[in-house]
């Protein structure tokens, strides 16, 4: 598949306000996005997602590294690169609240040098597609948050750029509108052949829409993989073991050493051991611990994990790894 967005070794450092110290917001980040792909950009707060997105949009200049959009270097030929990209960065805040729905669409098209006549047909299509036709003459400040969000996406769509960046597209909207936005985005990728990069905290949105995800933590990429691969990987690694007896003190000590993030609970009827394995071979070490006291095993099940849990685990492991390295 052909890459339409190529991010190579970008770095960005900010100076802290009223201080002489610097913060490395993005540190040597590289990834590519293929034409027609929906990529999820994930990370905890302050991980560097928005900084990365703004550098792709050309709103923020990287200290080093290159970003090319459809083969155009966005630092050397910023305005040419912007022909290939549009974005919804702050949802409803990206709109003029004193203008109507239609006026916003027409104004932003005009800002790209297009006449009202030229975009009239496309605006009609978008109003229909985004179910905004009945609200076309309504002032934006009188619309619901969900409608404003849909309009912001419609404005980005009107640019007819190949790449669309969406920062938190479902933030602050109700569940029903959230589903509607998801359907719209799915429809855009399927029928309009656009490439979409979504940054979101809503794991359901990412899991539902994206084929691949890049997870950033502390300014670095910690995972770049297809979502189904991550799901499979973590499904294999997470086990729920029901025991007929309880574990001895010695066994519990060993478990703490070998599997520091395990969870062990026991009640009168049963004990359960919830454990994630870093490698599949570690299951033998787990069995060795159980075998040393001949603890009877009732059942071993692969745990069902959702994408949110996977995300949490990846970030936690990365942070623990970084801590171990620094100590």
């Amino acid at each position: 598949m052909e890459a339409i967005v190529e991010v190579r070794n970008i770095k960005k450092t900010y100076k802290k306000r009223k201080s002489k110290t610097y913060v490395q917001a993005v540190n040597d980040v590289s990834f590519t996005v293929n034409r027609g792909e929906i990529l999820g950009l994930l990370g905890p707060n302050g991980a560097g997602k928005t900084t990365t997105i703004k550098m792709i949009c050309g709103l923020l200049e990287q200290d080093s590294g290159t970003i090319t959009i459809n083969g155009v270097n966005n630092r050397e030929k910023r305005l040419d690169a912007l022909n290939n990209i549009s974005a919804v960065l702050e949802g409803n805040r990206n709109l003029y609240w004193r203008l109507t729905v239609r006026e916003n669409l027409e104004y932003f098209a005009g800002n790209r040098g297009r006449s009202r006549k030229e975009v009239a047909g496309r605006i009609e299509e978008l109003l229909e597609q985004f179910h905004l036709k009945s609200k076309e003459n309504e002032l934006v400040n009188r619309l619901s948050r969900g409608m404003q969000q849909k309009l912001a996406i419609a404005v980005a769509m009107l640019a007819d750029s190949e790449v669309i960046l969406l920062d938190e597209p479902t933030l602050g909207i109700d569940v029903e509108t959230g589903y509607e936005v998801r359907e719209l985005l799915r429809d855009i990728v399927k029928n309009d052949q656009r490439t979409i990069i979504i940054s979101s905290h809503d794991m359901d949105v990412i899991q539902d829409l994206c084929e691949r995800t890049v997870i950033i933590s502390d300014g670095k990429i910690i995972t770049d993989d297809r979502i189904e691969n991550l799901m499979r990987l973590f499904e294999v690694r997470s086990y729920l073991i029901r025991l007929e007896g309880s574990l001895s003190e010695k066994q519990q000590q060993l478990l703490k050493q070998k599997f520091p993030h395990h969870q062990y609970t026991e009640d009168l009827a049963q004990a359960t051991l919830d454990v994630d394995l870093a490698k599949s071979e570690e299951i033998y070490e787990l069995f060795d611990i159980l075998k040393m006291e001949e603890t009877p095993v009732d059942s071993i099940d692969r745990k069902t994990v959702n994408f949110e849990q996977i995300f949490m685990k990846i970030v936690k492991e990365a942070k623990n790894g970084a801590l171990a390295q620094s100590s």
Partner: protein
Amino acid sequence: MVRWLNLLKANLRKEYIELKRYMPNTIAMVITFFCIFLGMFAGIQLVGDPGSQDVNTQYVIVNYIFWFLAMMVMNSIGWEITNEAMRGTLEQLCMTPMGLWKVMITRLISTTAIYFFIIVGLLYVSMAVTGQWLNIDVIAILPILLLTLISMFGAGFMIAGISIILKQVQAFLQILQFILAGLTFVPLTVAPALAFLPFVKGVDLVRNIMIQGVTLSEITMGDFFILGFNAVFYFVIGLGFFLVCERIAMRKGLLAHY
């Protein structure tokens, strides 16, 4: 060129829609300005020298009309940038492949074009209230006004640039309106060097036309040279300064989150 024209039409339409939709705000602003003028006029009538009352009133009319124009062109662009950054729309404007400076220049032209009608209206109302009818020689005023506006746009770009990178610019913008008042009210005979400031020479020449009845042919080449020099100098410097500020903002991440 067509894209330029479409950009200008879009911004002209936006400015017009907002002005019309929020007409009470516009009316309140014009009334406030007119009250300031009435205050000045009353001052001349009450404490001014009776021998020079008519001339002083004529001076005040021209000066305050130009002050209003300078405020609309130069000060409002600063407020607009600040508001756009706070609202979150500045980043969207920066993402246009036309370039932010082109959006800004069309905004400046649109604001000037729309407020021009209000200014002409204010001028005639002021003349009617005071009974001082000035010489409106359009042929002589127009070229001077155009060159003066170009230098004002340059200064407007500088203010827009400062507004992008400085978050506490509101305080400066408040002070700026008094600086602009000072520059429009000061006669060049008092401080000739001020002729090289963005619009002072233009105001002085328009005063000569409207009050003393000077014609276009009576204006010297030297005067036009200063006007032309100011127009080119301030526009180029202003635009260059704006582009540098835009670059700084992109380096430091100052385009949003006021």
